[in-house]
């Protein structure tokens, strides 16, 4: 008992400590220490929030993604190593990153000019294609004239005009321009999980700077994606960027939106926003008292039932779960096919309680309540609970149906007819006298 209490107390401490509700250990892998220095603003904000950064270069030998017993030492990977990734990083190849994401870890990867081939292979496995290592996103109309000279005056300091409209990923509170200098990428068609976060204007394209265009750029116009994110089905998030400069210290000035943008999308990727969970499933027959433990797992066909669930969203700033308010969460009642699909309505905004009621179909079997909620930027909700539905008991059928009264009358008239006929037969005048035979 004491051990149990102690463990619970410890668990509570851990839960309070962490920013992201997973644990806050981040492995930062950089090409060289200089790259870390040039992004120190970003990393120091992370450290201020309580993340534990372990900074390594690919040349360092004394690090490993997993402990001896195969568990991951980190829950987030921050990779700023486009030149050394897959070449000098033994133990962190493409397959290791994919396994890490599969296990639920978050990955941030910044590519840059002069990246090596394993980097583009990694981007491809997440569903997007990087342009050539020496290419840049160019835009001769929407470029920052203040910053262009800083990057060589090739009109490569482009203004990112397209930003994701998912308010959970990024909230633009400042409305300042975002300057991007780096490689463009294209997202493969028909990919459901990956989506662009930052893209160029209709006049942008990706090509080698200072070169006459001889063939078609691989991406142009608003398809020129600069940053993309992937929200996987298990809740893990991946952020892919074609540029390290976008979050570098040099661009984190008060005149640009880069600082706000970088901190927002990094905190989203590390799971500070948009992580959903369901709590407190309860369902019961209408008319029965509602308590937290009144979830029956057996219903009768045509029962009218009420269903309630609390949906919560992790708030990384306040370090606690807060009610999630949406109007498009749906509940399904499934036996192989969904027999009922209802939109849940939020009835208690302080708890995020969602409610619906429906009549169980006239079909016996094993059903499940299921909520599947996939929205861009939010971790998916995939939860279900099994209930069985039984037929009417023999004494639960309806009695004295109005429609059946003629049949009742007929049956009883037969009964009394037999009695009267028997009486007449025995005692009637002129009948066969059976008593004397």
């Amino acid at each position, binding site marked *: 008992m004491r051990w149990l209490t102690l463990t619970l107390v410890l668990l509570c401490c851990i839960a309070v400590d962490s920013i992201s509700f997973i644990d806050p250990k981040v492995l930062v892998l950089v090409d060289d220490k200089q790259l870390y220095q040039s992004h120190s603003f970003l990393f120091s904000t992370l450290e201020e929030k309580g993340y534990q950064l372990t900074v390594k270069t690919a040349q360092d030998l004394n690090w490993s993604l997993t402990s001896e017993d195969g568990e991951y030492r980190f829950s987030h990977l921050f990779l700023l190593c486009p030149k050394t990734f897959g070449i000098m990083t033994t133990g962190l190849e493409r397959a290791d990153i994919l396994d890490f994401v599969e296990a639920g870890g978050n990955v941030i990867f910044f590519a840059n000019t002069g990246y090596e081939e394993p980097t583009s292979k990694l981007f491809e496995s997440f569903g997007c294609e990087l342009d050539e290592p020496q290419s840049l996103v160019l835009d001769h109309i929407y470029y920052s004239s203040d910053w262009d000279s800083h990057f060589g005056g090739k009109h490569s300091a482009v203004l990112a005009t397209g930003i994701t409209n998912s308010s959970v990923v990024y909230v633009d509170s400042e409305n300042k321009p975002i300057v991007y200098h780096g490689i463009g990428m294209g997202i493969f068609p028909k990919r459901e999980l990956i989506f662009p976060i930052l893209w160029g204007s209709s006049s942008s394209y990706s090509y080698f700077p200072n070169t006459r265009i001889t063939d078609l750029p691989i991406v142009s116009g608003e398809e020129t994606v600069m940053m993309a994110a992937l929200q996987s089905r298990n809740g893990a998030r991946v952020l892919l960027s074609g540029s390290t400069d976008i979050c570098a210290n040099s661009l984190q000035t008060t005149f640009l939106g880069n600082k706000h943008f970088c901190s927002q999308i990094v905190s989203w990727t590390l799971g500070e926003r948009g992580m959903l969970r369901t709590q407190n499933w309860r369902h019961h027959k209408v008319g029965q008292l509602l308590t937290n433990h009144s979830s029956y797992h057996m219903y009768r066909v045509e029962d009218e039932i009420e269903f309630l669930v609390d949906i919560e969203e992790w708030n990384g700033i306040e370090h606690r779960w807060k009610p999630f308010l949406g109007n498009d969460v749906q509940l399904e009642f499934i036996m192989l096919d969904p027999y009922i699909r209802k939109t849940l309505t939020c009835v208690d905004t302080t708890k995020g309680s969602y409610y619906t009621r429906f009549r169980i179909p006239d079909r016996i079997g094993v059903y499940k309540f299921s909520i599947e909620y996939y929205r861009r930027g939010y971790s998916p909700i995939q939860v279900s609970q099994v209930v069985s539905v039984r037929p009417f008991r023999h004494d639960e*059928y309806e*009695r004295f*149906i109005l*429609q*059946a009264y*003629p*049949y*009742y*009358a*007929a*049956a009883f*008239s*037969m*009964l009394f*007819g*037999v009695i009267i*006929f*028997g009486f*007449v*037969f*025995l005692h*009637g005048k*002129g*009948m*066969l006298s*059976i*008593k004397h*035979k």
Partner: protein
Amino acid sequence: MIGTSIVEASKQLLVHYKNSVPYHLKVIDAFLLYVAFTAAIQFVYVLLVGTFPFNAFLAGFFSCIGVFVLTVGLRMQLNPQNQSPANRWQRINPSRAFTEWLFCNLVLHIAVINFIG
């Protein structure tokens, strides 16, 4: 010609029936008519309204059919024309036939009341 002969024949049939059938068999026939009429009404009703309380329909309809069949059995046993030495029923006396009919009706109606819902 045929029309008149059918009318003639049915007239003759009625006269013959009135004269030759004993009184107690006529009472049984009247009861049979009533039972058949009730069954017919229910059949028309189920065609009009639908089979929804199907068990109730079956109970009501089958109680008529059952009573009809049992009463026809009783009539056959009480018919003097069947009392020829060649007929094996000649040894069954009417009181036994009536008791059997009553018992069978009891069993039938227990089943009907149980099934009617």
